[in-house]
């Protein structure tokens, strides 16, 4: 074997992993905090899409059955059962217990370290493990464990108590003794989680066994890449990147469990990615019992840091996906439930062909190479939307090309002329039924999730930027349990029904909010620009067949003037309604406050008049009460009741 062969082998063996390493930031794995969130995000994306795909299939069947005048009750029930129910669990997979003497002081000393994996001690450093004893926690059937360690003559006891839902537990230092006597010396136990197991389960259609490795085990495998349709993911890279990240940081395979119908048993596959060939490899394959009808579950173990951003992300996901029920169990065993507020699936987005105005050079070149069309004209009319025979001819004429030429022989130079002609051609706007707004359901969702006292939503008509249809909907949730009047407004940004959590300052959605004059709408905005203050949450949802993110990290929307303008128009429309509400609310409050002043003061006046006039208390009280009741009947009763 030559040196070159050896080198080639090395080069190839690191290629996928190296690609990943170099592109972590593009894929959302550039920090340990982001890694956990990205994994959750990608898995939830997939779960939601799976349920919606299934619903679309069922809807088709319902249509067919209805046309044939057949009974659809069963299908409709099926559709209802498909409403997404997604369970996310983030569990401690490995943790370290560090025993410290005199914590936080100058003479702080690490006494010992205990390493655990999946709840079992795998290594002890600095101290000696003596024994583990178990006992039943009174009143439950759970058992707590006590671990005894020795540091010279000192015995250290650490206790672990499981929660109701294993594997969640709490760990604490139970006592430190020397020769049977409890030490008063200052010890403390620090626990540090280094590795998590993330598990995401859905009630979607399940995946046939043969497809599982392809979907979860090869990068850049997906069905969304060439179609223009509003969808959550758009690069087809997500979930397999999470599998790879887990594999790179822990060496463990991802476990996928999937069940496709009541009759079938669930199959469970452990897969890793063969980084040599970018190919999935099945490590283990079993049949498992699973009592649900259908659905998929993925378990990935990875190094990372769990933060609250996971809960925030899921809460926001739930706001723009009112038809989904999402459950999160965090590493401490705390359960979050984000309720379903709508029982209707959103409208299915219909895929469309690209529009000439929005086509870029790279895409055009690829389309020219892969098209089935025989001539340039049929390529234009067949592979693009809104191009008929006449407009197709005009484009080709302007580009000075031959309508009959074969698409795959077109040179780069010719293509650039063609694209110029395409961009300047007068064409109908692209069809907009590829978009699926949340619509009315957003309002219910905001009431439910944010517990606001007033909610207003506005959905704009679809619009087009550079040949790509897009649409904007906004929601304003006011009062209730949302912030105080001094706090800054809460900004919730979404693109294609997924929350955007980072890079707010670079984002067109935030930019549109900042450049509005909110003072005109009854909100406080220092200096008349920037984020407004007040008990308000501002929700902006941008959705499009192709979302113009500022970077591959998908964290912010590019500042196209037309997009900013549409958002502002939507915000203005909603704000006008909000202003009406605020004005009314304050005028009612003000008049109530005014009347209640008269009523309160009247008690004192009645008292003073009694003494000044030397009349009987009853007589004075009666006269004053009558005047107040005549004037302000209902408010009078209310104020009196409150007092």
């Amino acid at each position, binding site marked *: 074997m030559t040196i070159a062969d050896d080198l080639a082998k090395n080069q190839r063996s690191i290629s996928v992993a190296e690609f990943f390493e170099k592109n972590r930031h593009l894929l959302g794995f550039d920090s340990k905090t982001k890694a956990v969130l990205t994994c959750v995000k990608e898995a939830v994306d997939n779960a939601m899409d799976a349920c919606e795909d299934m619903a679309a299939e069922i809807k088709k069947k319902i249509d067919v059955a209805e046309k044939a005048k057949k009974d659809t009750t069963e299908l409709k029930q099926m559709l209802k059962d498909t409403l997404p129910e997604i369970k996310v669990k983030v569990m401690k997979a490995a943790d370290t217990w560090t025993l410290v003497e005199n914590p936080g002081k100058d003479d702080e000393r690490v006494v010992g370290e205990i390493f655990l994996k999946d709840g079992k001690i795998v290594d002890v450093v600095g101290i000696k493990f003596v024994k583990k004893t178990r006992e039943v926690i009174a009143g439950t059937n759970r058992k707590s464990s006590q671990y005894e360690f020795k540091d010279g003559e000192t015995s250290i006891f650490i206790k672990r108590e499981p929660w109701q839902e294993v594997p969640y537990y709490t760990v604490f230092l139970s006592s430190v003794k020397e020769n049977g006597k409890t030490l008063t010396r200052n010890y403390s136990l620090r626990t540090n989680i280094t590795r998590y197991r993330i598990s995401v389960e859905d009630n979607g259609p399940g995946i046939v066994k043969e497809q599982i490795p392809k979907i979860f085990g090869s990068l850049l495998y997906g069905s969304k890449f060439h179609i223009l349709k509003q969808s959550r993911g758009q690069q087809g890279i997500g979930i397999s990147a999470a599998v790879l990240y887990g594999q790179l940081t822990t060496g463990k395979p991802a476990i996928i469990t999937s069940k496709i119908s009541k009759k079938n048993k669930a199959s469970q596959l452990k897969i890793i990615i063969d980084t040599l060939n970018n190919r999935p490899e099945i490590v283990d394959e079993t049949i498992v019992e699973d009592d649900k009808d259908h659905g998929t579950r993925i378990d990935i173990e990875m190094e990372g840091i769990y933060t609250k951003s996971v809960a925030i992300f899921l809460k926001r996901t739930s706001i723009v996906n009112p038809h989904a029920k999402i459950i999160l169990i965090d590493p401490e065993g705390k359960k979050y439930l984000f309720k379903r507020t709508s029982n209707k699936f959103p409208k299915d987005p219909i895929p469309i062909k690209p529009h000439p105005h929005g086509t870029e050079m790279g895409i055009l070149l690829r389309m020219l190479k892969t098209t089935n069309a025989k001539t340039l004209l049929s390529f234009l009319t067949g592979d693009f939307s809104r191009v008929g025979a006449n407009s197709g001819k005009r484009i080709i004429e302007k580009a000075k090309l031959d309508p009959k030429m074969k698409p795959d022989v077109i040179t780069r130079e010719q293509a650039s002329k063609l694209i110029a002609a395409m961009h300047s051609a007068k064409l109908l706007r692209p069809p907009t039924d590829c978009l699926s707004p949340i619509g009315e359901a957003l309002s219910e969702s905001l009431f439910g999730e944010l517990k606001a006292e007033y909610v207003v939503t506005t959905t704009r008509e679809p619009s087009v930027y550079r040949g790509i249809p897009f649409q904007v909907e906004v929601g304003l949730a006011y009062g209730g349990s949302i912030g105080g009047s001094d706090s800054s407004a809460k900004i919730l940004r979404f693109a294609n029904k997924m929350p955007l959590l980072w890079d707010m300052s670079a984002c067109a959605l935030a930019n549109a909010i900042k450049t509005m004059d909110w003072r005109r709408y009854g909100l406080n905005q220092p200096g008349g620009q920037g984020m407004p203050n007040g008990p308000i949450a501002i929700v902006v949802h941008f959705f499009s067949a192709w979302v113009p993110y500022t970077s591959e990290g998908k964290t912010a929307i590019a500042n196209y003037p037309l997009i900013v303008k549409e958002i502002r128009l939507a915000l203005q429309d909603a704000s006008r309604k909000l202003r009406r509400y605020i004005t009314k609310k304050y005028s009612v409050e003000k008049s109530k406050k005014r009347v209640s002043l008269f009523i309160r003061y009247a008690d004192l006046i009645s008292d003073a008049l009694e003494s000044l006039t*030397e009349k009987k208390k009853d007589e004075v009280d009666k006269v004053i009460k009558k005047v107040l009741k005549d004037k302000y009947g209902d408010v009078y009763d209310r104020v009196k009741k409150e007092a």
Partner: protein
Amino acid sequence: MTESKKKLKELGNKIFNEFKTGKNPTIEIPIRSLKNVEYIPEKGLITLGGETSKRFFFNIAHTKKFMQTLMVAKMAKKLVEENATTSIRDLFYSLKIPIPGMKDNIFNDQKESDPIIEDLEVSLDLLREEMNLRADKKGTMIGDLVIEDAGDEIDLRKQGSGGWSIPSKVESDVIKFKEHSAKFILFVEKSAIWERLNEDKVWKKLNCIMITGKGQPSRGIRRLLHRMRYELNLPVIVFNDADPWGYYIHSVIKQGSINLAFLSQKVGVPDAKYLGLTTKDMKKFGISRNVSEPLSPVDIKRAKELLKYKWFQTKDWQEEITHMLKEGRKLEMEALSNKGISYVSEEYLPQKVSEKDFLI
């Protein structure tokens, strides 16, 4: 029934009837501001004009003051009935109580309750003393005079270094004048100077009665000055700082104040004379410019206001204030000490009095 009780009861009945007949209950109060005072040159007094304001119960801007006025009236009636007196500060504290069902108090500050008392005085044409309310005493007096204070005979020639403390009520039922041989009354703005003069027994040398109000004199002191002027027939001479505030204090003693214009008849001393300090004294007595002070912007503003007041339209005063503005300096009484600690008692005052160098 006393006059006070009758008037308070009448107020109550009026309000009660307005409630009963469905009218918006109201208290009518003469306006106590510059636009509603008149200077009557013949009398040399500031008097209250005829303009009144109405305080309505069913008006969000008036309602609290309306309630406060009635609460004060109630307290006053109680005092009159029980024949007890209380200070205006005590009155404030007894009404610094929460309004039932609210966080707010009836009164939060004495600055709120004092004007309400004055409102009630002008509205009912009753002095607060007649409603058994008194102010804190803050004046002292000494000199060639014997009086009777609440039955005790007091010889003002034998009051040591502190002097006799003037009570808040100085009406003839409390204070009676017995005998005197003084030739005039000297009002001194500052008590420190008054003490200096008493230490040097100036009142003996000049044969006068010396009185200080520690700044703006209370109405008790003004009432006492008024009584001594007319009952003992003694001229009143005023000795203040040479600044707009000293001049204004003089005018209050002389013609009355804008705020208490309704009292002028009872407390004014229209022929009071101003002895000093004046800014012209600086040159006359060779007082060093170093001990004078520059006029502040507020001083200048106030001085220009004084120039416009009708009761400052005399040759003497126009000249003095114009001179002050021209010099841009003011002078405190203490500045005289620069020429020696007893200069004021041994040189300045005797010379001024004997030359009758007064501003009129």
